[in-house]
């Protein structure tokens, strides 16, 4: 195991940020810490990095107990949401900072920085200052800076949170790509389930200071362990006392066994998929997702009466108290 | 410690003879008149400062003219210029040997002038940044709703500037109450006429009447600390209410 967190709790004043959290991260894996704001995910990352001291519990990195080792000696690479670029240094000096702290020979630093700048596509920018870079470029520089010291683990705190949607998308793919090439154990924090699904091999869902579920993206989506996870990782429709994914509901033109009557309120054509908003006879609103072909076949339009049949394989029994 | 200990010494000294001795020291006719004069000239100064400081800040932010950069820099001059020099420069121009044929030396007008000089930057520097950040769209919105220039100023701009103006005034007042260097030459220090509190204290120290000096000092201390706390509390209140 690359990172082992056991029974970590952390309190800020009255606020409980981490409540007896345990977590294992495999060597060389790419893991997402996913959760709503205030769920403790950033705090957990900072505890792993040594930027916060846990009130109780232990942190091991590559088998060594690092619970009380200060950040400077943990050998972690940390990337901040707002880049934390050293504004008074050039890109080259930023990336070379960790190596110069370690008093490496200049020639070696130079060579290593050149390699890294190439890796993050910033070769032509070595002499610029952070203020002269775009947000995406700054974040790539911050990544190169973290990688320069060959960290045992790479930790990223909402790395794309401050970027535009387009740049964000591009950087996600790029991070995956980079991970395949560098293969350093990587943990990143995000509140965006799509980002977690797209980038990570393993997702740790956090809620209210605890770990709610740990699973690969597909399993998480298809077999959520709780109502919270089900609702958090994708859209949900309520059918009777079950929670179902909107695409797991079949729309039938005629009554059938196990199907419930509903009226179409609105049909939204979103290119490939069609989102249908319906109202059941007892007044509940349900959103269903169907393919374009299916919508055409059913000739769906507002006011139409149809029957809905959920696919129980992907359904979860609603449990109000656990929400 | 470095700050507290000396002040503690002053307070202790003033309390040495008990409450009645303290009261006697503070209520001698000369002390009372010095304190009254100090408050009076400080109020006058602050009032003039409020008007002109705001006007200057306005001109520096909203107006464009050649040499504006130099004027902006000049505003800080009173902070940088030694106070004794400030007093001397005013005497050179408005003193008995000045070119205008009138003299404000040894008058209360002279004291106000000296205080105006040293406290000039307070209101300007407090109002300027607020004015700079003031959303012009707010004024445009008011104008589009039919407000005239005066109404816009009175109902939109002034309320937004008010906290900064008051903060500047508070600091300026505290400074006026304690100012010594700028006043000492121009005032002539005539007891009952042009002797302000700080000069009175100085005189009492010189004539070895340390207890009286300490007692009046405590009054000054209390006034300026209260003011400073008021300004800080107002700033906190504003920060909380305007995010």
């Amino acid at each position, binding site marked *: 195991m690359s990172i082992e967190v056991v029974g970590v709790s952390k309190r800020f004043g009255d606020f409980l940020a981490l409540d007896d959290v345990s977590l294992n991260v495999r060597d060389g894996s790419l893991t997402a810490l996913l959760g709503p704001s205030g769920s403790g995910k950033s705090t957990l990352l900072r505890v792993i990095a*040594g930027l916060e001291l846990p009130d109780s519990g232990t942190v091991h990195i590559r088998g060594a107990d690092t619970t009380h080792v200060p*950040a*400077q000696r*943990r*050998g*972690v690479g*940390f990337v901040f949401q707002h880049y*934390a670029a*050293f*504004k*008074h*240094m050039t890109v080259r000096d930023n990336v070379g*900072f960790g190596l110069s*702290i*370690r008093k490496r020979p200049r020639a070696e630093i130079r060579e290593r920085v050149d390699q890294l700048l190439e890796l993050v596509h910033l070769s032509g920018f070595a002499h610029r200052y952070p203020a002269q870079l775009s947000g995406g470029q700054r974040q790539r520089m911050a990544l190169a800076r*973290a990688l320069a*010291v060959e960290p045992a683990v790479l930790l990223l705190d909402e790395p794309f949170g401050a970027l535009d949607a387009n740049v964000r998308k591009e950087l996600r793919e790029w991070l995956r790509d980079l991970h395949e090439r560098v293969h350093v154990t990587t943990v990143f924090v995000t509140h965006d389930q799509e980002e977690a699904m797209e980038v990570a091999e393993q997702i740790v869902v956090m809620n209210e200071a605890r770990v709610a579920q740990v699973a690969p993206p597909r399993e998480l989506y298809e077999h959520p362990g709780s109502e919270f996870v089900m609702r958090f990782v994708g859209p949900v429709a309520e059918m009777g006392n079950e929670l179902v994914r909107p695409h797991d509901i079949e729309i039938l033109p005629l009554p059938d066994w196990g199907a419930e009557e509903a009226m179409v309120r609105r049909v939204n054509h979103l290119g490939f998929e069609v989102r249908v908003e319906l109202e059941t006879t007892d007044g509940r609103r349900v959103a269903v997702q169907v393919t374009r072909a299916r919508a055409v076949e059913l000739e769906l339009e507002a006011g139409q009466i149809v029957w809905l049949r959920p696919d129980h394989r992907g359904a979860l029994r609603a449990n109000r108290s656990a929400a | 410690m470095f*700050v507290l200990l*000396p002040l503690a*010494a002053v307070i202790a000294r003033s309390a040495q003879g008990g409450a009645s001795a303290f009261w006697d020291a503070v209520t001698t006719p000369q002390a009372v008149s010095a304190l009254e004069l100090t408050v009076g000239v400080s109020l006058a100064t602050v009032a003039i400062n409020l008007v002109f400081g705001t*006007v200057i800040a*306005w*001109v520096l932010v*909203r*107006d464009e003219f050649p040499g504006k*950069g130099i004027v*902006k820099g000049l505003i*800080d*001059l009173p*902070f*940088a*210029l*030694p*106070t*004794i*020099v400030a007093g001397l420069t*005013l005497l*050179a*121009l408005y003193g008995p040997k000045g070119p205008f044929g009138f003299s404000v030396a040894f008058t209360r007008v002279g004291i106000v002038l000296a205080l*105006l000089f040293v406290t*000039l930057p307070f209101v300007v520097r407090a109002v300027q940044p607020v004015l700079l950040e003031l959303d012009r769209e707010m004024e445009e919105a008011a104008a589009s709703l039919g407000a005239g*220039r005066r109404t816009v100023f009175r109902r939109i701009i002034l309320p937004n500037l008010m906290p900064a103006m008051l903060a500047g005034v508070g600091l300026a007042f*505290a400074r006026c109450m*304690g100012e*010594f*260097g700028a006043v000492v*030459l121009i005032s002539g220090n005539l007891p009952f006429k042009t002797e302000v509190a*700080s*000069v009175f*204290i*100085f005189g009492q*120290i010189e004539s070895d009447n*340390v207890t009286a000096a300490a007692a009046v*000092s405590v009054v*000054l*201390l209390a006034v*300026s*600390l209260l003011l*400073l706390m008021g300004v*800080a509390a107002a700033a906190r209140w504003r920060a909380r209410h305007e995010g």
Partner: protein
Amino acid sequence: MRASRRLRAVALAYLALLLVLPVGMVFYRTFEHGVAAAWAAVTTPDAIHAFWLTLLMVAVAVPANTVFGIGCALVLVRQRFPGKALLNSLVDVPFAVSPVVVGLALVLLYGRAGWFGTWLADHGIQVIFAPLGMILATIFISLPFVVREVVPVLREVGSEQEEAASTLGASPWQAFWRVTLPSIRWGVAYGVILTTARALGEFGAVSVVSGKLAGQTETLPIHVEQAFQNFDLAGAYSASVVLAALALLTVLSMNLIKREEVTR
């Protein structure tokens, strides 16, 4: 348009009458009888001694307050502890207190009859009526400047850069020298300039503790006052011009730093 021009005229006239003309007048009076006369007036032994003593005040007070100021700002911004609000307002006290009161306070502490007076006398240390007391007064008076300039900058810079440095292997000391200090350098520089200006010009507090002994405990501002009181107008004006020139230099460097900050 007309209204704004009138406002501009009012503002400029006020500044001219209050600031520019009086200061100009002192320059005029100084050089009225030629540069040689002015030079002679500022190079009397007492004036030269006052000049060096003033520089000594600055040379001690400014570094002391810079180190204290940065340290205090770091504590105020980065640490949480009970009594922080108290420390925060204590730092401002020297702004609020009359210089004369500061002088009196030091006399009461370190003077012959003061709290530490006997102990100091026993050890042969003279504070009051000696440069040591004047240095203490100067430090006290100019205490808040660096703190007040550095605190907002430090707050704006945030602690992320320091954290980044520590995850890259920098010790707190290295992070301070290589990351924190460079990023607050303009704030520090600004504070240092203000401190210098105040230390150069302090009159009230220093004159209480100095005893005003010409050629011994006279700083340049005290020299100005003494010369004026002794009807040596040439000496007072020319020493004032030296101080005013230093003040102008201060204002100039303040503006240069502001510009530097903006272009960053």
